[in-house]
């Protein structure tokens, strides 16, 4: 019965074939061939010349098929088996010695088997495509997906014999819906365990042995997929991922995820914007930085502060990159909001310990924020409205999928609110900010793409005073990406970054002033990635930054002002760097990443440099001479290598140990006056009197995953050393100081700590708990300095906060309603208190405690937010959701600053809490 059916099918297909084994006798004829990379056609001619066979084939299917064969007296079957092995060509020989060669026709000989076991096979092919069967929404996509997953992709120039050795596979991983590149997607094979993570363009490239492989692709928030590939030689494969849409009755089958166990990177946290959006925040806006500070090893300087500290580093030791542009002040309203529009951000990566060699110039961490490229397939938008802010993002293709744009804006309209409150103090207050994003990208051809990004943020506020604070970031850059070959690609970037701030006071028209300051930076960088072979992935490049700082101008404001204009000389410097790194896979269990970066820094004229008496402390009193340098002249230079090493060893499938050692250099410093009500930061370039900061860090981590990687746990410990970290001298005057070196001193710092993390990112209940113990201690080590801070002993840095506990929990009651809870506890930050008054001959002085001897009250905050979403129909014009949030649920008055003022001869202390009560918020978010 079965046999007849098969026979029938074969007849239909137009060939009268018999099973290959029945043609055994005929194909016994022996043939001898010596072929080197020859066409199939030549092979046919040679065989037909030696034996009585007739080949039937479609030349167009076989024209790119090349044959290398070296045989002596073999049967045709043996020859054909050998040349077609590992290809999707199949052959059959009939009684008349006709040879039929077909592509993808598995039917011929295997048909019977496959037919009989049809059901089993189908199940096999769907194996791992767990949720599909139950998926009511994604049926079509699933079909596509399944078919894509079952298809065999041939990569490279096809050959009959798969030669030994490795080839490179490269391509883009994109979102199937929007065409946007997916960053941080893992592309890997299991055997041997090699793989890569896609870069910010969604590009991946890695070497693997030739032959047949199952390529797996996973990414946060996207449906995991796989591709069957047949790798002949170097080639390309673009992969589209489907968004992970949760099903109503999901059957949770977790297959192997890319876990923290496998990645070589340690001390790196990758956050996807979807995750960020789950975390409850003040005023209902998803906030990148507020999420970052919940990660282990990251602490916030204080509530409503501009910065965050990573592993005991200061806030200025973080390099914050937004599409490659340096952001000097990543916050709005002195830290109430972060400066990044959540609808524009795609993902965020924070490097804490092993900083890739392509980054440099900061001592502590790199926060790499990438924005979306814009939907390449259709026009869409998203936004949100709350009583205080509004935001809108539009994106879409410009032409046939080659060009796309994304434009976003965000603003606050809280000003009116302050003015309606019937109290003159409030009417004198104002607060406003906005930010704008514009990204354009164009793909010229498969090898060349261009990305243009622009960013601008501006802040202005005045809280119950006559002093107005303004600051602004402006960034623009243009990046060209070129793919040289499968093994190598490069990017070239030019950019301009600016940060400015100003403080103006107009309480008294006679004293009205404007104090302003700015940092400008012109960037150039060229980066190249080269996949040498399976074991080595090399990256190298150069970068150059030209800085121009205006360290301060104090100018009269208004015609009545009698303020004497005072403008400090600008500063210029050039920071160049060269780097080379290699990721080496020594064995499936052991891999190493090694890199070196060499930086060269030039401090340039025009500027006057003060010299001080040899061997004397740098005090105004010891000022010896002023040397003027002409414009562009090199005043001095600093240079040095930086080493980046890390290694991973997988103990078991679920556990690994990682270790790293990093050295870093930093040429731009911030000196912060934290004693005043509103901290004002002074940026300063290294010069002959101010040495660059250097530092190194050892870290060791242990990672263990449980329950098929559903629960990730990790412990990381680190020890960090810093040199030439600047702290202010006792009684320093920082603002409008033309010789800041006289008011700062160098310190040696040590920071150490441990980070514990338990994370569950799937399931109804997800979230993480982290505990960080971190200490940062400084010791004044300037040999010239005589008045040692705290008697030359180690003292806690301004941002030393030993205990930090963070809990982020998210519970999905249903697919339309979820609740998130966020709890933060940290030790209060250090404080120097005035503790007494005393008389010296002729006047009165305040006596302060030892530097940072006391601490702020401990910080504790609980936030709750509820997300109510509309229905989940995928094909709907507009998706909307409501977020109701309660910030600081316990209404604890966490102090933002503690300061002292003299009032009627009395020195009074005040603590200022910004969010001293529960703050409710409601936000309407939409997407179309």
């Amino acid at each position, binding site marked *: 019965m079965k046999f007849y059916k098969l026979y029938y099918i074969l007849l239909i297909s137009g060939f009268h074939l018999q099973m290959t084994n029945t043609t055994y006798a005929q194909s016994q004829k022996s043939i001898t061939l010596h072929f080197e990379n020859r066409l199939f056609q030549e092979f046919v001619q040679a065989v037909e010349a030696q034996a009585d066979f007739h080949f039937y084939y479609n030349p167009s299917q076989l024209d790119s098929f090349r044959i290398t064969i070296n045989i002596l007296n073999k049967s045709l079957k043996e020859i054909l088996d050998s040349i077609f092995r590992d290809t999707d060509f199949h052959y059959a020989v009939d009684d008349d010695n006709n040879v039929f060669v077909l592509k993808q026709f598995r039917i011929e000989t295997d048909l019977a088997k496959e037919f009989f076991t049809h059901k089993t096979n189908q199940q096999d092919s769907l194996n791992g495509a767990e949720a599909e069967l139950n998926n009511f929404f994604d049926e079509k996509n699933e079909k596509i997906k399944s078919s894509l997953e079952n298809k065999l992709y041939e990569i490279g120039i096809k050959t009959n014999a798969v030669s030994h050795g490795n080839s490179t596979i490269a391509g883009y991983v994109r979102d199937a819906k929007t065409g946007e590149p997916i960053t941080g997607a893992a592309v890997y094979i299991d055997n041997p365990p090699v793989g890569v993570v896609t870069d910010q363009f969604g590009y991946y490239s890695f070497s693997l042995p030739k032959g047949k492989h199952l390529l797996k692709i996973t990414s946060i928030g996207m449906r995991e997929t796989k591709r069957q590939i047949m790798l002949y030689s170097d080639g390309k494969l673009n992969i589209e991922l489907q968004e992970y849409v949760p099903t109503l009755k999901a059957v949770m089958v977790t297959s192997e995820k890319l876990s923290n166990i496998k990645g070589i990177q340690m001390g790196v946290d990758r956050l996807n914007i979807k995750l960020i959006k789950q975390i409850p925040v003040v005023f209902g806006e998803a906030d990148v930085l507020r999420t970052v500070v919940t990660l282990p090893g990251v602490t916030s300087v204080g509530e409503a502060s501009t910065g965050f500290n990573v592993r005991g580093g200061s806030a200025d030791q973080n390099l914050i990159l937004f599409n490659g542009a340096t952001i000097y002040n990543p916050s709005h309203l002195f830290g109430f909001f972060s400066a990044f529009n959540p609808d524009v951000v795609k993902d965020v990566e924070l490097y804490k310990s092993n900083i890739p060699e392509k980054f440099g110039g900061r001592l502590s961490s790199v926060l790499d924020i990438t924005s979306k490229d814009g939907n390449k397939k259709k026009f869409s938008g998203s936004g949100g409205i709350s009583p205080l802010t509004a935001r809108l993002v539009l994106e879409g293709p410009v032409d046939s999928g080659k060009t796309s744009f994304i434009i976003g804006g965000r603003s606050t309209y809280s000003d009116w609110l302050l003015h309606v409150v019937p109290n003159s103090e409030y009417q004198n207050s104002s607060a406003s900010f906005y930010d704008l994003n514009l990204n354009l990208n164009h793909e010229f051809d498969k090898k060349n793409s261009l990305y243009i990004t622009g960013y601008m943020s501006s802040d202005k506020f005045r809280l119950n005073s006559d002093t107005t604070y303004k600051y602004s970031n402006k960034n623009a850059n243009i990046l060209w990406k070129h793919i040289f070959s499968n093994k190598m690609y490069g990017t070239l970037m030019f950019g301009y970054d600016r940060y400015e701030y100003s403080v103006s006071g107009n309480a008294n028209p006679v004293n009205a002033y404007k104090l302003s300051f700015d940092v400008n930076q012109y960037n150039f960088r060229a980066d190249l990635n080269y996949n040498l072979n399976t074991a080595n992935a090399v990256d190298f490049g150069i970068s150059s930054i030209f800085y121009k700082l205006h360290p301060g101008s104090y100018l009269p404001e208004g015609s009545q002002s009698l303020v004497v204009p005072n403008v400090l000389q600008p500063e210029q410097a050039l920071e160049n760097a060269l780097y080379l790194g290699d990721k080496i896979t020594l064995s499936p269990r052991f891999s190493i990443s090694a890199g070196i970066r060499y930086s060269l820094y030039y401090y340039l004229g025009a500027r006057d440099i003060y010299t001080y008496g040899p061997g004397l402390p740098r005090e105004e009193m010891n000022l010896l001479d002023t040397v003027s340098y002409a414009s562009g002249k090199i005043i001095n230079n600093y240079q040095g290598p930086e080493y980046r090493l890390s290694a991973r060893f997988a103990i078991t499938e679920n556990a690994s140990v990682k270790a790293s050692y990093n050295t870093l250099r930093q040429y731009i410093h911030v000196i912060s006056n934290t004693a005043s009500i509103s901290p004002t930061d002074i940026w300063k370039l290294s010069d002959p009197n101010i040495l660059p900061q250097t530092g190194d860090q050892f870290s060791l981590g242990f990672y263990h995953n449980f329950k098929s990687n559903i629960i990730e746990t990790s412990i990381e410990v680190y020890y960090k050393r810093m040199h030439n970290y600047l702290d202010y001298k006792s009684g320093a005057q*920082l603002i409008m100081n033309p010789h800041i070196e006289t008011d700062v001193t160098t310190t040696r710092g040590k920071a150490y700590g441990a980070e514990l993390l338990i994370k569950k990112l799937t399931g109804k209940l997800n979230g993480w708990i982290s505990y960080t113990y971190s200490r940062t201690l400084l010791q004044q080590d300037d040999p010239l300095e005589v008045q040692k801070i705290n008697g030359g002993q180690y003292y806690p840095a301004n941002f030393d906060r030993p205990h930090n506990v963070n809990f982020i929990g998210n519970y999905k009651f249903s697919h339309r309603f979820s609740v998130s809870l966020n709890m933060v506890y940290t030790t209060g930050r250090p404080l120097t208190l005035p503790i*007494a008054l005393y008389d010296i001959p*002729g006047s009165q002085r305040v*006596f302060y405690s030892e*530097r940072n001897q006391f601490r702020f009250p401990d910080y504790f905050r609980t936030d709750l937010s509820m997300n109510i979403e509309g229905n989940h129909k995928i094909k709907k014009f507009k998706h909307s959701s409501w977020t109701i949030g309660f910030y600081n649920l316990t209404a604890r008055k966490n102090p933002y600053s503690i300061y002292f003022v003299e009032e009627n001869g009395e020195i009074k202390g005040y*603590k200022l809490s910004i969010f001293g009560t529960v703050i409710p918020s409601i936000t309407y978010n939409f997407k179309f």
Partner: protein
Amino acid sequence: MKTSTYFYVIFALTILTGCKQAYTPPSGAVTTNYLVVFGFLNSGADSTIVTLKHTYSLAAASAAEAENNAQVSVENDAGAVTKLSEYGNGRYGLTGLSLDNNRNYRVRIITSGGKTYLSAFTAVKIAPPIDSLEWNKSDTGVSIFVNTHDPQNNTRYYMWDYIETWEFHSFYQSYVHLDSAADTIIVYQDLIPVPHVCWQSDYSSNILIASSAKLSSDIISKQAIAIIPVNSEKIAARYSILVRQYALTKDAFNYWQALQKSTEQTGTLFDQLPSSITGNVQCITNPGETVLGYVSAGSITTKRIFIDSTQVQPWEYYQPCGTKYHVRDSLTYYLHNSQIPIGIVYGKVDTIKLTLRDTIFRNIDGYIFTDSYCADCTVKHGDTLKPSYW
């Protein structure tokens, strides 16, 4: 609408009011009981003074409490001990201590509470003479500079303080005198019954230090000492400054330099950052105890100059003084209202003539009054006693 308004109000209140609260430092943080020791051991014939006070609270209306009934003595590294006498109010001293310039000295303090404090041994630094004091006048005022040098290149670290004294005159000269007891006015002839010419003195309040450490020779040239703001009362008549010069050890210099940078101001944008500078005195009985202050030893050299108002012309010292006429009947009221009479008005008001020297007593309609400080220089704490050097 109602709910949203409520929300906005909550927001506004949160941002702006709920925030500022009085901060009380943790218990034990604020102390008012550290000993503050300042002393200068004068190697010459002049007096040596050591003051013992305490730190005091940041709260208003507090003042330094003196440490009385202590035993204070000066010791040298050869073991010689000289006891200082107690002058009261925390001051201890002796005239003519006659130190050996080749020895190091320190101060030992034994308080009535039984605690012992010791200052670090310090060398006796002999101050070279002040070469000159010079001054010049600019738009901002008169600046006074000091010039000095040490031919041995030994001094290097200098400190100064000064006493400035000036003569000043009240705006009006009164010929009438108020007998407040009798509530009557006595009119004198050719007499100035109300003090009209006074002298006033002030001490330097800033820390004045300079160093020649960076120079190849030990010369201090044109070091600014004082500035008299333009048109100030100080040079309205005649001004004098006595500058005292001290030589410091390097350590003492560093102490004063650090202290120089600290001020009592806090809380403003241009704030200086906190400092905790202690000094060279230690508690022996309780080594962990914080002690503030500094004790140095050495000699003092001085120099005085005078500046006359004629040397700084134009110099327009403005006094906001005017006169008012009051009838006799309201006399009692004005006499008790910080005003004093400076003249008599005879006859009608519209013919006011301040003919103060007029000897003819006619019917007195009223008096001319002015603010008391405009006619009486002692109201402004002037001293009518002419200094000996004037």
